[in-house]
């Protein structure tokens, strides 16, 4: 009797599994649980410490190069780091080399500056999309206005208060690149090494291991990897957001898979030896 019941469970309609997964992933979006995330990786901690020690008023350049396909992992990272920069009263400049990221950038800056009373043009500036990153990176080494003479809204970049005293990499305290492409490698090779600017990165979980060598040689001052990196950064700046709810979802979903695999094996054992 039990055996028959179990066998039925064995061939459970997989739509129940789908439903479970959907609930487990969706619930934390509505209400983040804040499951313990006590481990903070060294690289995320380093990224945080570096940003935290920059003197207030310094200029930080964000290169946000991700499109909707890597949004779940990278958008929370960008949010958290921009928040941190505003919290520390740093000046923020944003560039991008991926056409698809312009929409995502405006999403960030529609929301975050308001929380810290920051004004476009005075505290931050968004530059228009440029396709050829190698040329732009080199140009910014001497005079960034050679390429970015206007900001995204067409205002003369030179006269913006936020750009006061900023001409090239020498006037920047940090470059942050958040990307799902190899553009971070270019920032390290073309800019970090050549012009002596510190570079911090944010990448997807899949490409994270590849940056080990750069971190070892300190060519990268810190690195956020995937949603976990975002969650870690959020907990460092004490502003739980999408990264935290994301890692909640992932935690539960992974747990669900493990429980499912275990149950199916336990049932298999019972059926076989009972």
């Amino acid at each position, binding site marked *: 009797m039990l055996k028959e019941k179990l066998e039925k469970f064995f061939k459970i309609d997989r*739509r129940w599994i789908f439903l479970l997964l959907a609930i487990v992933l969706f619930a934390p979006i509505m209400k983040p649980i804040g499951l313990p995330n006590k481990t903070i990786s060294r690289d995320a901690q380093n990224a945080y410490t570096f940003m935290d020690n920059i003197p207030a008023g310094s200029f930080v350049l964000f290169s946000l190069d991700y499109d909707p396909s890597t*949004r779940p992992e990278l958008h929370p990272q960008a949010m958290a780091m921009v928040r941190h920069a505003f919290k520390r009263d740093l000046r923020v400049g944003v560039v991008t080399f991926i056409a698809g990221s312009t929409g995502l950038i405006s999403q960030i800056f529609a929301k975050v500056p308001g929380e810290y009373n920051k004004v476009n043009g005075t505290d931050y500036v968004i530059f228009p999309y440029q396709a050829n990153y190698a040329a732009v990176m080199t140009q910014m080494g001497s005079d960034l206005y050679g390429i970015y003479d206007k900001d995204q809204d067409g205002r003369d970049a030179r006269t913006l208060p936020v750009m006061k005293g900023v001409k090239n990499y020498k006037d920047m305290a940090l470059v942050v690149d958040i990307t799902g492409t190899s553009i971070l490698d270019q920032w390290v090779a073309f800019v970090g090494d050549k012009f002596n600017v510190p570079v911090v990165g944010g990448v997807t*979980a899949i490409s994270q291991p590849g940056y080990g060598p750069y971190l070892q040689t300190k060519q990268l001052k810190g690195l956020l990897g995937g949603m976990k990196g975002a969650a870690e950064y959020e907990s460092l700046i004490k502003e739980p957001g999408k990264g935290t709810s*994301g890692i909640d979802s*992932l935690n539960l979903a992974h747990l669900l898979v493990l429980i499912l695999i275990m149950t199916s094996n336990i049932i298999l054992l019972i059926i076989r030896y009972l």
Partner: protein
Amino acid sequence: MELFANLWAWFSGLFVITPAWMTLGAWVAVGLTIFIFSFLYKDNPFFKIAEHLYLGAGMGWWFQVYLYSIFIPKVWDPLMAHQWGVIIPAVLGISLVTQFIPRISWMSRYGFTFMMGYGAGLAVPAGLSTDFIAQIGGTIEPLSRMASMTPFAIFNSLLVAFGVICVLFYFFFSVEHKGAVKKVSSIGIYFLMIYFGAAFGNTVMARFSLLYGRFDELYTYSGSNYFYATQVILISMVLYFVVHALANKGKKGTSEEAA
């Protein structure tokens, strides 16, 4: 003429992206997302609509990519500038289209033999260097630091080499797998199993992140500023399935179980 210009201006003015367009976009995106997900429950007309729309949209997307990144800049512009060199690939390309006319379809061979030759010529040396020589090198290279290695690291390097040899035994085709060969190749299978399991487990997180991303977007569009797009469409879908199930109640065999 002026009327025409005015009409055109009015027409293209309609397609300037306004906040209203953004809200409409949210409804479209939510609808299509839920239609595709509904396939997980069972096949239904809404999925079929999304599926066919996607067929067209996918081809349309690539068509404009090809048009604006190849046909215009790489074929049309050079021709206008009297660079006749592009005629060769264009003719090879057009030869492919002769497929539709059986009598001269042999012409398409010119096009695809070109592609085959190019592909094969690239594959040989690249395969030799990255997948053959470099993989042998990668297997033996760690042991060159023998003097400074821990016993565990030495064991690991030897294990990799041993595993590679066993797996290759598994792929031996001209030897019957029995006796010693069978033993070695079955050890190779264990290495394959570890790789398969690990690669599977490693991908799970990336896929969940994608799904989380979709759900997050659905959640965003469930807000009042989007007029509750997600809730409305989701509830209508559920209602449809309920009504459909009630209507088909008693008619056995018509239900399309997706399980």
